[in-house]
């Protein structure tokens, strides 16, 4: 534009071209908003607005008929939330069961995928081995495939006459009927030492409407197959993060410690591990955040069965709303889950920010580029 050039030229003396003022500034203001407008509209309309709508619905008893934003829909206040925590009933029992299931799921998935990812990264990072890029791709490939398609494969692997049970058969083990087996792993362990039924102390009473015995069930056999699938698909991604972290470990440091006579384990324990601590923290927290969101696999593989032992809060909120048509309750469960995940995310961002306080840029930038520069 001619005017733009003129303005730029007339203000040029003394100002760097970077800091043009006047007409250009106004132009940029308008252009800036025009450029971001589509994204604002889409994210606003399909992300922020719906969250507010759901917040409203979580305070009502809307059953899916008509619009939830008319006076006909019964307003119930915080009831949908209180029935999850303080009122004895099916809603609370189901919700607490889903929390229990997901806690066991997290307790196994997060350590397992972290250790596996680190192990794979260490092997792939080994300077003495050839063909590493092929294996790196092989380990990563499951991460990019469709969760639904992979769940179908694992349904077959864990079928009663499937590959996993065939493998176990070679070892002389009679595999379980994976997706029909609701027995908890801890209960099975108790059973192995002779405790088959709950001792009186655990049989009745316990927090939030579940008995201590129920809380201590452990992940069910069916849940183990979902856990296996998830660890198998996510490890590749985290392996790549560890690889990036390992690249920051100076070779000289490793060699120096070798010369000093450190054993491989000592080098790993006292050189490598401290150097990649930021990556480890990241992998752990991303794992924690991600594993509260498991949904697709549950939907495809088990639909929450058997005996609700694979129900997770995410799946429960879906089922409560879209199968039982209790949208208020479903939305309330979503928001409790939202809160759990946001708290984990904030803890992570806070910790990462503290880690890089010596950086000059603003908060989000510091956290995002620490390993880079």
């Amino acid at each position, binding site marked *: *534009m*001619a005017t*733009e050039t003129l303005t*730029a030229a007339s203000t040029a003396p003394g100002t760097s*071209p970077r800091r043009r003022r006047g007409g250009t500034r106004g*132009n*940029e203001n*308008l*252009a*800036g*908003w025009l*450029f*971001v407008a*589509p*994204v604002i509209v889409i*994210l606003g309309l399909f*992300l922020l*607005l719906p*969250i507010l*709508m*759901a917040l409203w*619905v979580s305070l009502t008893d809307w059953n899916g008929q008509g*619009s939830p934003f008319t006076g006909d829909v019964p307003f119930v206040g915080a009831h949908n939330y209180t029935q999850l925590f303080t009122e004895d009933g099916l809603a609370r029992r189901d919700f607490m069961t889903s929390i229990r299931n997901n806690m066991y799921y997290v307790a196994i998935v997060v350590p397992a995928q972290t250790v596996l990812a680190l*192990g794979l990264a260490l*092997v792939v990072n080994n300077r*003495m*081995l050839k063909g*590493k890029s092929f*294996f790196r*791709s*092989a*380990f990563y*490939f*499951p991460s990019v495939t*469709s969760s*639904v398609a992979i*769940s*179908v*494969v694992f349904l*077959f*692997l864990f079928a009663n006459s499937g590959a996993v049970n*065939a*493998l176990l058969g070679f070892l002389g083990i009679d595999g379980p009927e994976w997706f029909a087996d609701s027995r908890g792993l801890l209960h099975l362990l108790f059973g192995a030492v002779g405790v088959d039924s709950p001792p009186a102390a655990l049989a009745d009473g316990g927090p939030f409407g579940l008995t201590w015995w129920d809380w201590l069930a452990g992940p069910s056999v069916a849940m183990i197959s979902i856990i296996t699938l998830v660890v*198998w698909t996510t490890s590749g991604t985290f392996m790549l993060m560890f690889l990036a972290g390992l690249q920051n470990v100076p070779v000289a440091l490793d060699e120096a410690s070798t010369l000093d006579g450190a*054993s491989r384990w000592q080098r790993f324990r006292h050189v490598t591990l401290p150097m990649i601590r930021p990556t480890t923290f*990241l992998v752990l927290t991303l794992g924690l955040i991600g594993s509260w*969101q498991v*949904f697709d696999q549950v*939907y495809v593989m088990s639909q929450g069965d058997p005996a609700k032992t694979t129900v997770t809060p995410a799946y429960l*909120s*879906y089922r409560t709303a879209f199968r039982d048509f209790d949208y208020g309750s*479903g*939305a309330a469960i*979503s*928001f409790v889950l939202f809160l759990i995940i946001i708290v984990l995310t904030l803890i992570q961002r806070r910790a*990462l920010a503290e880690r890089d306080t010596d950086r000059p840029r603003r908060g*989000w930038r510091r*956290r*995002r580029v620490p*390993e880079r520069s």
Partner: protein
Amino acid sequence: MAVPTDRPAGRDHRAARTLATRFLGYATLVFFGLVFLYPFVIQIGNSLKTESDAAANPLSPFPDPLSLAGFERIFAGTNFPLWLGNSLLVTVLVTLGRVFFDSLAGYALARLRFRGRGGLFAAVIAVMAVPGVVLLIPKFLVLNQLGIYNSYAGLVVPLLADAAGVFIMKQFFESIPVSVEEAARIDGASIFRTFWSVVLPMAKPALITLTILSFQGSWNEFPHSLVSVQDPDLFTLPRGLADLVSGSLGSGTQYPLKLGAALLATIPVAIIFVVFQRYFVRDANDGSDKG
């Protein structure tokens, strides 16, 4: 890996140890290579088996006899072609939308000085932290309210932009030198013109990354289709697959068919993965910076 803790006593000792390490390293690689790839081998093998063969020999990758019955029934007995068409349409539209809208916004946030930019960027970062699974009911509510539930619009429009893509583009635009576009601007090009003809061509690597991520993301997208449509004619591949598995097939387990359908749904992403691998890897490493 096994970790010998004794210190090397001499040259022979050390050579032997190196050899052992190398052997162990390869053994580990091959073992985990099998763990990560063999399920796909089983999938391919069993999709070409008869149903009884798949049930009797699930571990074997070799069909005996070779049977195309599963694949024939995928095309004759299910809505697979329709799902494929829907998935293609959704994926192409969503990818185009994301690449265009995300780079526009990314450019503005990186380069243009406008009031509210800082706040907007903070919002983008905040939005990135919103987990998709808590949006199931909210999305359904808004689509229902806007009257586009159960339509192609409902399937496509909400996915046309994403915060992570904006973030990737912004980071990239900040990394390219500002001098070229300044020259263009001084030569009288408008802001959009500069963006379109000068900046975008320089952003090819980021655009390829974003294209691949959007393609992969929308091709695999499942929860959104679950809450945005219910008419079987609007099912995408993942939705159709999930429907197959949950028993719309009727009698029998029909594993060859299911595995075959899942295989066909995986192939496009697999091809892209093999061809554009380094862009996938870059994404995962960006993730490590993302926090």
